[in-house]
């Protein structure tokens, strides 16, 4: 399966889990809202219930008071009750559930109240009638009837009280049921939240592990391959999965193979070139030697018969042949500077001293300042110093020339300087002198091949180093070149 698909699936799963969590919380909040609404309604119901009961009690006591005292002020409370109780009951009926036990209770209360009001109304009317007719004598019997009937009245009132009690109890029970329900919902939601959270964590952790171990590991293998390639180690990857990373692996493999092939080709070409240069120079030298010797023999055999011009001509032939030999040797040297040598511990001061002792005449003054010890390709450095010092000797003005060799150390490289007080080089030619076969023909008796500096330049180019010359005609020359410094190899 493609990586993108896998990752999308994983993240979708996490999103879905989040969504589910949100949903369950949403449902909980709906339930809480419901519960709140229920509670406020319940409170209203209880308030109404209390008011209703109170009103009925007021009616009862007003009724009793009037009967006992005949004071019509008591009737105020009774009449207010008469008016308002039905209204309250109607309201309460609206608030209460249609098919509930509470409705039944309310209906009972309604009915009982009617019974009582019938009873009380009758008694009050009778009392009023007698009071208005001045029949005070008949009031007592009314009171008697009242007392008799009080049992009935009392019974009704007790019943009403019971109903109210039951009603209230029912309401409280409902409240506790609702409350228990809500608690249960909350618990359930908590459980779900924990579940979703755990699942989310699980999916998240597994995705991370997957990314790190499988995907990153493969990426690391590819990085490793790239590093190998950069160090010339052309290995390939084995990637059989068929996802986005596989195409990268394939590309890297192609690159590695291509580089490997090209470098092999180049190396082969270089080897062939080297062989060619060697064979050419070797085979060119043989006939040259032959010519040289024959000319020598002619000179020897015809010593006394040869005219001065002829002698000179023979000499010129010999000279030219020598020069050609030098050129061929120089070419061979130039071709071979590409050869890799292995780094070794090099005491540069010793190296330079040996060169000086070999090629610098004793009449010269040579000053060598502190030179470093380093691990480097000794032969190449030796070649550079040899050529520079030999040039210094070649182009000196007198037998007592002066050569100074010094070194400056920098963090990543060295800067070497070979300075002489010879004939100097016209600034016009400062960059030309490093070209192959360039020599400055003016004013020098000893011919040079023009290869020495070209060889130096080639060695330095291969090392990514530079050389520059500070010089002017008659003012000597200073050649400054850089050389790599490999810090942690000593």
């Amino acid at each position, binding site marked *: 399966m493609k990586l993108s698909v896998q990752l999308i699936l994983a993240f979708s799963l996490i999103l879905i889990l989040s969504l589910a969590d949100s949903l369950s919380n949403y449902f909980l909040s709906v339930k809480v809202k419901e519960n709140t609404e229920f509670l406020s309604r319940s409170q209203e119901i209880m308030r109404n219930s209390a008011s209703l009961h109170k009103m009925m009690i007021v009616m009862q006591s007003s009724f009793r008071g009037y009967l006992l005292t005949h004071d019509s002020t008591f009737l105020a409370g009774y009449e207010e009750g008469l008016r308002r109780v039905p209204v309250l009951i109607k309201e309460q009926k609206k608030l209460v559930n249609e098919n509930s036990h509470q409705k039944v209770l309310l209906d009972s209360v309604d009915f009982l109240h009617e019974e009582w009001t019938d009873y009380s109304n009758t008694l009050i009317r009778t009392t009023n009638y007698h009071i208005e007719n001045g029949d005070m004598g008949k009031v007592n019997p009314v009171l008697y009837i009242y007392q008799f009937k009080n049992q009935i009245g009392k019974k009704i009132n007790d019943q009403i009280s019971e109903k109210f009690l039951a009603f209230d109890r029912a309401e409280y029970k409902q409240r506790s049921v609702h409350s228990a329900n809500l608690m249960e919902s909350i618990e359930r939601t908590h459980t779900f939240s924990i579940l979703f959270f755990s699942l989310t964590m699980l999916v998240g952790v597994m995705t991370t592990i997957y990314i790190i171990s499988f995907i990153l590991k493969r990426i690391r293998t590819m990085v490793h391959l790239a590093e190998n390639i950069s160090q010339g180690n052309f290995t390939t990857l084995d990637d059989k999965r068929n996802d986005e990373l596989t195409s990268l692996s394939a590309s890297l493999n192609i690159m590695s193979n291509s580089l490997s092939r090209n470098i092999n080709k180049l190396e082969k070409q270089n080897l062939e070139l080297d062989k060619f240069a060697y064979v050419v120079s*070797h085979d060119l*030298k*043989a006939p040259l*030697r*032959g010519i040289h*010797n*024959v000319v020598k*023999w002619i000179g020897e055999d015809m010593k006394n018969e040869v005219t001065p011009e002829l002698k000179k001509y023979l000499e010129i032939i010999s000279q030219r042949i020598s020069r050609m030999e030098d050129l061929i040797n120089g070419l061979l040297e130039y071709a071979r500077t590409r050869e890799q040598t292995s780094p070794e511990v090099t005491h540069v001061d010793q190296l330079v001293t040996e060169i000086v002792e070999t090629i610098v005449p004793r009449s010269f003054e040579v000053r060598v300042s502190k030179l470093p010890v380093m691990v480097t390709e000794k032969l190449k450095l030796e070649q550079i110093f040899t050529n520079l010092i030999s040039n210094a000797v070649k182009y000196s003005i007198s037998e007592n020339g002066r050569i100074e060799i010094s070194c400056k150390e920098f963090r990543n490289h060295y800067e070497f300087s070979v300075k002489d007080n010879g004939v100097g080089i016209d600034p016009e030619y400062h960059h030309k002198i490093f070209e192959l076969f360039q020599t400055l023909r003016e004013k020098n008796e000893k011919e040079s091949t023009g290869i020495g500096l070209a060889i130096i330049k080639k060695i330095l180019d291969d090392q990514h180093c530079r050389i520059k010359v500070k010089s002017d005609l008659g003012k000597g020359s200073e050649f400054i070149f850089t050389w790599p410094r490999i810090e942690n190899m000593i």
Partner: protein
Amino acid sequence: MIKKILLVEDDELDVISVQRTLEKLEVKYDLYTAYNGIEALGMLNSGDNPLMPDVVLLDLNMPRMNGIEFLRTIRKDSRFDDMKVFIMTTSSETVDRSTTEQLGISGYILKPLSYIGNIKRADSMDAFVEFHLRKILTDN
């Protein structure tokens, strides 16, 4: 008795060079020249007047039969066991010393047309002439 020297060498200039060097010797000798191994064998085996050289100066790189093959052939013939064979080599030639030494060599000479090289244990032509040839030719 005048000693005989057989020079087996294909390069014209090398022959002249050896001849000129030998001429500096004040000792008399007879110099015979063959340009390859076959010619040399011919001279050694020629019917009524076979050549019996005291010294053979042998080049290795020759057409038709090179020095080693020639050497092998004559070493099979015991008539030539007393012959002193010197191999002429250039500095850049790599001589298979084990083979040549097995075939009984008296020494190695650096060819005068050679360059200054690193070959060890080979005398220069002049040194050879001075120290070996003179002695061989004047020995009785």
